[in-house]
């Protein structure tokens, strides 16, 4: 028994010896070759390759990091993903690794070009050098790698044409060349790649036509060729690719019609032909591609109707046909697509009513159909309670808002503007806790603003301009603490501007013009520090302009015209250094024009006409930008027109109707005596004003009633009607 093991040991000893020696003799040149390449690496902070040292007793590189060998000890795979290698391929041992089957150098800093010696790696099955900094063209010798199944060259800076020799890689199953600078055409020889399953050519500069030979690639599952410059038609032969799941040709310059043959693609799940120059009809046969989940045909020149056969695409969840010239109605059959989540039909010439069948779509999240010619009343559309974005603006829709939209609490962004919707606004809309944007402008809503709006606390933009709203602005609007744009202009709102509006510190734009708002401008409106735009014109506001108002250096537009504002222009107005347009015309403002107006260093337009301003035009007007358009007509100003650019080319229309202006302007009387220095309002002048104001005030009210009789009469009526 004892003898037996010793005997077998001695029997096998020579074999052991032989086996130990053999790998060394096979790997020694391989290890050396790899070390020659490693020696060209630029010094980087990586300890990953410390294992790559001169082989010791065994001489085998097979234990090195990233190096894998087959049973016979020969290197068959190099996996150096994300190893921070900064080197070229010029000294790579293409000739010394005869059994190399797999190269994976994904994410490194390899640079330079691929040498033609790559063709020597005849056993290569897997080649991935993606996400490096390689440049130059793909050598035609790549065509020799006839065992290659996977070729990934993505996210480098390769340029030039794709060599037609790639068509010789008959084992190729995955070809990924995306995010490089390849140009020229897709080689016709691609038609030979019968085993090709995944084809990723996107984000390059490929041009020319898609080869019809691509119809031979019957194993194709995914084709991504988006963001290139491909022209010509979509080959109808693509209809033969019955395993195809994804065809993405987005953002090219493809022309001609959509081939009806694409309807044969029963496995197709994602079809994007968006952002091309396609014309003609949407083929009805697309309704046969019943696997479709996503259909993007937007931004083309498609015409004709939406085929009702699309109602057969039961798996469809994302339908985007916007920005075409589609006509006709929405087919009722689209209501059968119970998986629809995203429907984009915007910017077409679609017409007719919105079918009530769309109310069956319980999973709808985005519904955007603005800029069409839809008419009639809205059906129930938010029955699933999931709609977030709902855009129907710029159509011819009329009637009331249906109940499901009143309670559609999922809404985040809604646009109904520029239609003919009618109904009592306070009954049509509810509370929307997630709503940030709502535009109802340019419709025929009547009734009052309900307190509800104040509960939609996430509102950032609220526009209900150009309707027939009445009643007053609820103080609850002060709860809209996220609001930045508020436009209620061109309605018949009455009552005062609630002081609670002053709490809305994020407001950028307030537009309340063309209503019947009365009372004073609340001094709380002076607290806005970010306000850009304020228009309260064409109302019945009375009282003074508040002293600290407005307080925002960023204000570029202030319009208070056509009101009944009285007393003086606050001197703080001079702080508005970015004001481009200032209009306070057609009010009852008195006193002198403040010297501080001259500080408005960005002013492009100044209209103080039709007021009761008196005294001299401040000399500081000389400091205003020379191109400013000034109108001070119909006041009680006197004295000489200041020198300087602002008045150089002013016409008499902008000056007439005053008390005694004089100067060197056509139509104006010349000044009789040397010009009196127009002083700043100092203490002395203030005294005169204090005495003068009651006198002027007394006379001006009587003049006001003579000049604005209609406004005063109707103003009294409105006080009766305005409930709050």
């Amino acid at each position, binding site marked *: 028994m004892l003898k037996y093991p010793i005997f077998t040991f001695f029997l096998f000893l020579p074999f052991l010896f032989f086996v130990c020696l053999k790998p060394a003799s096979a790997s020694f040149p391989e290890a050396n070759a790899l070390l020659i390449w490693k020696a060209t690496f630029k010094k980087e902070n990586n300890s990953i390759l410390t294992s790559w040292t001169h082989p010791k007793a065994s001489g085998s590189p097979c234990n090195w990091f990233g190096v894998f060998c087959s049973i016979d000890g020969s290197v068959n795979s190099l*996996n150096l*993903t*994300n190893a921070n290698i900064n080197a070229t391929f010029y000294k790579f041992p293409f000739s010394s690794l005869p059994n190399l089957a*797999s190269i*994976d150098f*994904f*994410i490194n800093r390899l640079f330079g070009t691929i040498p033609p010696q790559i063709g020597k790696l005849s056993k290569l099955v*897997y080649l*991935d050098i*993606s996400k490096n900094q390689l440049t130059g063209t793909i050598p035609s010798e790549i065509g020799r790698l006839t065992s290659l199944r*996977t070729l*990934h060259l*993505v996210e480098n800076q390769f340029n030039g044409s794709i060599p037609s020799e790639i068509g010789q890689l008959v084992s190729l199953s995955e070809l*990924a060349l995306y995010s490089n600078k390849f140009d020229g055409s897709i080689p016709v020889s691609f038609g030979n790649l019968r085993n090709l399953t*995944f084809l*990723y050519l*996107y984000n390059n500069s490929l041009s020319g036509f898609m080869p019809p030979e691509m119809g031979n690639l019957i194993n194709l599952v*995914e084709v*991504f060729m988006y963001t290139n410059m491909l022209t010509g038609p979509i080959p109808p032969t693509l209809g033969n690719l019955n395993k195809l799941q*994804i065809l*993405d040709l*987005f953002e090219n310059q493809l022309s001609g019609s959509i081939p009806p043959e694409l309807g044969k693609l029963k496995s197709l799940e*994602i079809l*994007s032909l*968006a*952002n091309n120059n396609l014309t003609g009809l949407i083929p009805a046969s697309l309704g046969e591609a019943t696997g479709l989940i*996503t259909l*993007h045909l*937007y*931004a083309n020149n498609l015409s004709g109707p939406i085929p009702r056969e699309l109602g057969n695409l039961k798996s469809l969840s*994302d339908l*985007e046909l*916007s*920005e075409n010239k589609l006509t006709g109605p929405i087919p009722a059959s689209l209501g059968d697509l119970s998986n629809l989540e*995203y429907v*984009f039909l*915007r*910017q077409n010439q679609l017409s007719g009513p919105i079918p009530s069948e769309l109310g069956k779509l319980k999973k709808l999240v*985005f519904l*955007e159909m603005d800029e069409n010619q839809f008419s009639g009343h809205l059906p129930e559309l938010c029955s699933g309670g999931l709609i977030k974005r709902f855009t129907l603006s710029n159509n011819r829709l009329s009637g009331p808002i249906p109940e499901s939209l009143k309670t559609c609490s999922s809404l985040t962004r809604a646009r109904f503007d520029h239609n003919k919707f009618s109904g009592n606004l306070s009954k049509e809309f509810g509370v929307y806790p997630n709503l940030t*944007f709502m535009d109802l402008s340019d419709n025929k809503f009547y009734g009052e603003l309900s307190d509800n709006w104040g509960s939609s606390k996430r509102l*950032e*933009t609220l526009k209900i301009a150009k309707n027939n709203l009445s009643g007053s602005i609820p103080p609850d609007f002060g709860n809209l603490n996220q609001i*930045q*744009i508020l436009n209620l202009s061109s309605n018949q709102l009455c009552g005062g501007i609630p002081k609670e509006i002053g709490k809305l510190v994020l407001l*950028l734009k307030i537009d309340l013009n063309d209503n019947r708002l009365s009372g004073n401008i609340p001094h709380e409106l002076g607290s806005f520090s970010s306000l*850009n*735009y304020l228009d309260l014109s064409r109302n019945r506001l009375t009282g003074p302009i508040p002293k600290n108002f407005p307080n925002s*250096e*960023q204000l*570029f537009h202030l319009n208070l015209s056509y009101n009944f504002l009285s007393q003086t222009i606050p001197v703080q107005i001079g702080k508005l250094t*970015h004001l*481009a347009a200032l209009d306070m015309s057609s009010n009852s403002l008195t006193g002198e024009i403040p010297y501080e107006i001259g500080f408005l*260093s*960005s002013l*492009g337009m100044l209209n103080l006409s039709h007021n009761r301003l008196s005294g001299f035009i401040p000399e500081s007007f000389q400091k205003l*930008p*020379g*191109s400013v358009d000034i109108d001070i007509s119909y006041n009680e100003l006197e004295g000489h027109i200041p020198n300087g*650019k602002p008045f150089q080319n002013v016409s008499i229309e902008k000056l007439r109707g005053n008390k005694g202006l004089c100067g060197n302007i056509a139509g104006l009387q010349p000044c009789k005596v040397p010009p009196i220095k127009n002083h700043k309002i100092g203490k002395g002048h203030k005294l005169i004003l204090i005495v003068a104001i009651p006198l002027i005030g007394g006379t001006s009210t009587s003049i006001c009633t003579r000049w604005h009789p209609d406004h005063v009469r109707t103003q009294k009526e409105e006080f009766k009607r305005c409930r709050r």
Partner: protein
Amino acid sequence: MAGRDLFVFVALTVISSMMAPKARGNSEGDALYALRRSLSDPDNILQSWDPNLVNPCTWFHITCNQDNHVTRVDLGNSNLSGHLVPELGKLEHLQYLELYKNKIQGSIPVELGNLKSLISLDLYNNNISGTIPLALGKLKYLVFLRLNDNQLTGPIPSTLASISSLKVVDVSNNFLCGTIPTTGPFEHIPLNNFENNPRLEGPELQGLASYDKNCS
């Protein structure tokens, strides 16, 4: 293999990015979105700048005209830092570019010379460096040019003197060199709008050779 897993991941992100509903790119929105990506915005001033919207006209701090072209960008005093971008030059209808009182760095892109409708360029009170591009001389409707309180170097381009609409120029508190122009619109710009530029020399005397030393 790790490489393959990463590859699949990338492919899936491609598919999911396709799901984001898009429209044909609006070039003005894209230009402004490029600006947003280049700026650091701790107060979320640019949160409404959503590139998925059809145009930027509902974005805050943006004003459009009736044809949905951007006419104003109002971002003064918004705590922004980062850089301006060349894409801004694509806003052909822009009249007011208000970026004053921020912490913007880097240089003024020469592409701003393409803003052919520009009336007001307010970049004052930032950390902008580099030179004032000669291309700004192409802005034939410019009225307001306020670049004061930055770190601008180099000369005041003579091309600015050809803009007859220019009314307000302020380049004070910079590091400009060369001479102060005196022709055209510069006849009426007060001298203190040039002050605190240690290497900027007094108004040029017409007809004499300029005495720029090392100023380019």
